[in-house]
């Protein structure tokens, strides 16, 4: 097996993950090919689009149609009842406050019956096993199923079963799964990650929960990124766009801005990436650069 050169890892970050379209636009214009794509949560949508060979424009339009407010507009009343009366209404691990009908339809629209075998670039999507908490790397089957599992935000959408495992959102185990690219033997890893925003004022239980989740997942992101940066013998290039505006969950209107800033963030790292590629294309037998 020939050694994969450049891997792209897109971490969780909701609508902010659209910045990866800009990243790809930059790499494309510079003629730097990607040999392997890994995606987690929101990043899984774009990882899949990239792997299937969608161009930037259709990837962008796919998000704007996929991710609209009505995806979360249908509360699941039965789930609410099961929250209050767990015994009568059968509360189980498949709990979600919102119905996932529209979400599933949209994913079917976006990805159809495309499978991992249809990908032009090897694709890896991460989720989290809800029973054991382990990270799950999905590499086969329908892409729509894998993405659905990876974006199963806890409490919002019900978990999704893939290959007999009940899966929830990939960010719970690793928000930026660089480890998958390392295990696949990638030489240079471009990792685009997003920190969750801190709440400015905590005025409700919901915001309190968001703030807690931000604190923990940001620390998980930093710790696992720090470890993988140390453990990997070669190079992990972090692309962490700092957006000029605050991005909310459904700010799909800001996607053009996200794409531009994602491209700019990648462009900043280009000289370094070029140097690494030049070094690795020369025959070498010993030592990391």
């Amino acid at each position: 097996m020939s050694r994969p050169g450049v891997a792209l890892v897109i971490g969780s970050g909701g609508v902010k993950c659209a910045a990866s379209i800009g990243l790809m636009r930059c790499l494309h214009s510079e003629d730097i090919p990607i040999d392997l794509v890994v995606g987690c949560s929101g990043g899984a949508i774009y990882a899949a689009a990239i792997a299937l060979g969608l161009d930037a424009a259709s990837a962008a339009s796919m998000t704007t149609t996929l991710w609209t407010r009505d995806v979360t507009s249908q509360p699941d009343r039965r789930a609410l009842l099961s929250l209050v009366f767990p015994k009568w209404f059968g509360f189980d691990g498949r709990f979600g406050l919102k119905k996932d009908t529209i979400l599933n339809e949209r994913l079917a629209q976006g990805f159809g019956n495309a499978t991992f075998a249809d990908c032009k670039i090897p694709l890896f999507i991460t989720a989290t096993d809800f029973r054991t908490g382990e990270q799950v790397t999905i590499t086969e089957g329908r892409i729509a199923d894998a993405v659905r599992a990876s974006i199963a935000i806890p409490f919002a959408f019900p978990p999704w079963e893939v290959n007999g495992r009940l899966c929830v959102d990939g960010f719970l185990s690793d928000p930026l799964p660089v480890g998958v690219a390392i295990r696949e033997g990638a030489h240079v890893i471009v990792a685009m990650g997003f920190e969750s925003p801190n709440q400015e004022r905590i005025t409700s239980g919901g915001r309190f929960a968001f703030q807690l989740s931000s604190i923990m997942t940001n620390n998980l992101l930093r710790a696992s990124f720090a470890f993988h940066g140390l453990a990997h013998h070669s190079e992990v290039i972090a692309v962490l766009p700092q957006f000029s505006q605050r991005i909310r969950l459904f700010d799909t209107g800001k996607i053009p801005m996200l794409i531009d800033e994602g491209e700019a963030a990648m462009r900043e790292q280009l000289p370094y990436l070029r140097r690494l590629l030049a070094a690795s294309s020369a025959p070498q037998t010993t030592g990391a650069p």
Partner: protein
Amino acid sequence: MSLSFTGERSLGDLSQRRSRIGLVIGSGGIKCTMAIGLLKVLAHEGIPVDVAVGCSGGAIYAGLYALGDDVRDMEARSLVVWRDLFTKLHYRSLARAIAPAFFGYHEQVGLVDDRRVWDVLESQFGMRTFADCRMPFFVAATDYRTGEKVTLSEGRVIDAVRASIAIPLLLRAWPVQDRLLVDGGASNPLPIDIAIMEGCDIILAMGFESHMTADVGSFTQAIGRTSTIVTNHLLRATFAFYSTAHHAEVLPIVPLLDRDVGITEWEQVPYLIEQGEKAAYEQIPYLRRLLASQGAEPAVVAPMQRAVSAEIGATSPSTWRSTRPAAPSASPPASPPASPPASLSASLSAAPPASLSASPPASPPA
């Protein structure tokens, strides 16, 4: 806090330089009483400690130890402490959480009666300060607004401990030096990094994984499961990073329990202490070997950064490749694994911890 300051109060024998030993007790609610078992073993075996670090429940016992309290006292008081700590609810908070519009949402939720918690902590720590400790002592907490890791080492110990045990939802955040702080477990459940920065050569790190409930049959259990998944991953990721980065020895003490112990199950404390003692004894032979080999030569306190670059430089791509596809085995790999251990206890119980240090004090057995 500088090294010279800590050196002055070090218990180390002045005539002979020996390894600097750090004790780190992680977060884990009532499971932290297992630290009493560890402290009993340290006392019994006459193992000195130079630096104490604690997080959340672990801060209680690291603190009492650093202040010089007798471990038998701690054991005797532990039942009372945990019977009183989290068992009385604060009904107004409960009402606020359920109906914020009626009762006025407070920025912080705290379902447990705070006054009771304070009384319990006061009975243990009084108004003693960090300056009263017989060794340098550090408490890990989390900044509630920014989520950053915070290290406390000044002022009253009780304030630092109260901040560090502010378990989300149960206890309100606690202001210390103009910062609002919550549970250290939310950012740094097993704060080995603090002991590394204090220049420890050998670090005894007692950590606790959260237990996965068998079934999810209610909303509370669903919340519990979700947060357990994240905290366990955070524990493993930070542990993996710290032990890769540290030039010397991190001895993990991760007791295995045959049952789940909830935060209010104070009757289980004697069982927990016993398990902690057992887990600690398992590490003693290895610790003795380390002390024997390191005591002879002067301990090297290298900056963390230098150690890291040495570590990475020493790992050649070929060895990395050869270990990559192999499933985690009992023998410690020559290079760091590609992912944090799937389970701390599982990966560590089989063999002495993989020695990642550049200096080979004790070669791992075949």
